[in-house]
């Protein structure tokens, strides 16, 4: 677990109390991230609980004063990707979501529904999905997002750019620029 590979820091009882309080305040963020990442509420909450337990167990490796939210997001995404690789099809492909998206593409007059948004997100690769969520929804800097995902900042920027292009193509096709980049990697 990359996020936990940090120097063990001496923790006082006060640090533990502060850590617990901060961990609890991070739970809603972890739930929001996990839900959009995997698209399944029950699975998302399992991910969050597992993340919280792992974070608590590894608390001695968390440096007080650093970004706990980023640290726990990293634990969650690593755990999610492990699961995703293990059960790729069940976790990630939702034929109903794909179906809804097709219907949505045919009718661009109506407002954007959250279910459409969810379905479009699930069509992205997990790397691009987490990139756009970290930057576009959770409000992390590119540097923090890159650290969470264990990639270079430039890689994070390019993942976000590609995720944006794909989402725009799926959800706002009328706004699409005439000359667009290919899907690329």
């Amino acid at each position: 677990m990359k996020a936990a590979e940090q120097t063990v820091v001496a923790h006082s009882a006060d640090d533990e109390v502060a850590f617990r309080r901060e961990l609890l305040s991070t739970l809603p963020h972890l739930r929001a991230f996990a839900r959009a990442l995997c698209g399944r509420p029950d699975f998302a909450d399992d991910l969050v609980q597992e993340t919280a337990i792992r974070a608590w167990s590894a608390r001695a490796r968390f440096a007080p004063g650093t970004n706990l939210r980023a640290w726990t997001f990293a634990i969650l995404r690593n755990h999610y990707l492990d699961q995703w690789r293990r059960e790729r099809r069940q976790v990630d492909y939702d034929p109903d979501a794909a179906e809804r998206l097709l219907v949505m593409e045919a009718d661009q007059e109506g407002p954007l529904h959250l279910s459409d948004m969810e379905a479009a997100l699930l069509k992205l690769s997990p790397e691009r999905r987490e990139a756009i969520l970290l930057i576009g929804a959770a409000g992390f800097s590119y540097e923090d997002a890159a650290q969470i995902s264990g990639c270079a900042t430039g890689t994070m920027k390019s993942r976000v750019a590609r995720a944006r292009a794909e989402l725009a193509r799926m959800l706002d096709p009328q706004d699409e620029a005439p000359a667009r980049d290919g899907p690329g990697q």
Partner: protein
Amino acid sequence: MEFALSHLGGKDGRDRKLGALPARRRTSEPGWAQGLRKLYNSVLDEPIPDSFDDLLKKLDRGDDESR
């Protein structure tokens, strides 16, 4: 393709008030960008479900076993 979202990150990664971004930022940004934040914020605003009770108790007691 450059959208307004490219400026959202901030340079120090400091948590904003509750971290998440407001649902509406700029009128020039694409509709999906607002939809993305709306989706995220809709979960953020939910109360923590009862299924977390055991976890919360465990954290309250400061249990160290991982299960």
